[in-house]
C-alpha cells in the first residue's frame, strides 16, 4: 500500500517535471479564502444605471471582481485581458458568470469612460464596470481589504465568489490565463 503510494508520488513528480517547462514567465500568485461583508452602497455602471452592489455581488451566479481604473497603464490591462479570455472561453454562456470591475479612480471615471474602456477591450454582456462616489468606493475597497490610498499604488487583486459556500477566493498577483481558468473552474465556472 505504502509502496504503491510512493510510486504514485514519484510518478506525479515526474509528470510535474516534464509537463512543459515552467515558464520563467509564470510568476507565482497568492491565493486565500476570505469572507467579506459587501457594504450596502449604490454604484453606477457603464450605462449610467444605478446598481445596488450588495444584491449584485451576493447573487446565485459566480462573480469575479477586480479593481481597476480607466486610465490605468500597467496592471489593469493584464487583469482585463484575463476577463477577455474568460469571456471568450465561456462563449455564448457569458451570462453564466458575472464579471465586475470596480474603479478606484471615481474622480475621473464617469460612466462614459467606463463604457469606452469596455469597448476597447471588446467586452461582451456579462462584464460590468462600476463607479460611484469616492466615499462609497473607498468603503467597498476596505470591505475587500483592498484599500489603496493612492490609486498608483494599487495591487493586482482578483476575487472570485462561489455562490454555494458564499466565500471569496482572493488572488493576489498577475495570473497566467491557465492559472486563472483553473481557479475559475475550481469555483465551478
Amino acid at each position: 500500500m505504502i509502496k504503491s503510494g510512493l510510486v504514485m508520488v514519484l510518478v506525479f513528480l515526474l509528470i510535474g517535471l516534464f509537463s512543459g517547462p515552467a515558464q520563467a514567465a509564470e510568476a507565482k500568485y497568492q491565493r486565500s479564502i476570505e469572507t467579506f461583508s459587501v457594504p450596502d452602497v449604490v454604484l453606477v455602471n457603464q450605462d449610467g444605471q444605478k446598481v445596488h452592489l450588495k444584491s449584485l455581488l451576493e447573487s446565485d451566479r459566480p462573480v469575479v471582481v477586480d479593481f481597476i481604473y480607466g486610465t490605468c497603464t500597467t496592471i489593469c490591462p493584464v487583469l482585463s485581458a484575463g476577463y477577455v479570455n474568460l469571456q471568450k472561453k465561456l462563449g455564448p454562456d457569458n451570462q453564466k458568470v458575472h464579471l465586475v470591475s470596480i474603479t478606484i479612480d471615481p474622480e475621473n471615471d464617469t460612466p462614459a469612460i467606463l463604457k469606452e474602456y469596455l469597448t476597447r477591450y471588446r467586452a461582451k454582456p456579462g462584464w460590468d464596470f462600476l463607479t460611484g462616489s469616492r466615499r462609497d468606493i473607498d468603503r467597498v475597497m476596505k470591505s475587500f481589504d483592498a484599500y489603496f490610498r493612492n490609486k498608483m499604488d494599487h495591487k493586482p487583486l482578483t476575487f472570485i465568489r462561489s455562490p454555494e459556500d458564499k466565500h471569496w477566493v482572493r488572488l493576489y498577483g498577475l495570473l497566467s490565463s491557465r492559472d486563472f481558468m483553473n481557479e475559475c473552474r475550481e469555483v465551478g465556472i
Partner: protein
Amino acid sequence: MTSKLLLLVLAGLLTLPLAAAAEETGQKVYLVKDYRYEPGGSTGDPEVGQSLCGTRCNALSSDYLNFIEPGGWRMVKVASDSEVVLDLGNPFMQGECVCLADEYLVKLVEYNRPKEVKP
C-alpha cells in the same frame, strides 16, 4: 526653596484654565463609515432613501487627508461609532439618515507648526 516651589505650583495652577480652554477648541469633524436610511413611517422607495442618505452622510464626512497633508494639525478621536442622526433634508422625501461615524477634534499643533509668517 518652598516659596519658589509655591510660586511654581501657583504658575501651574494659573495655566490650567488656559490649557483646558485650549483642549476645548478645535474643529469637530466626522469620518463616516456607514449609513442607513430610516423611513420612520414615510412611504418612499427605500433604495432611493439609501442612496440619498449616502449623499447626506458622505457630505457630513471629511477627507482625513485634508487635515494631515497641510502639516501642523492633528486629529484627536473623541468618539467611535457614533450614530449621528440627520434629517434626510430632501423636499421630496421624508425620513432620517443615521450616519455611523468616528468623531474627531482637529487641533493646531503649536509646537509642531512651521513658523507662521504674518505677511
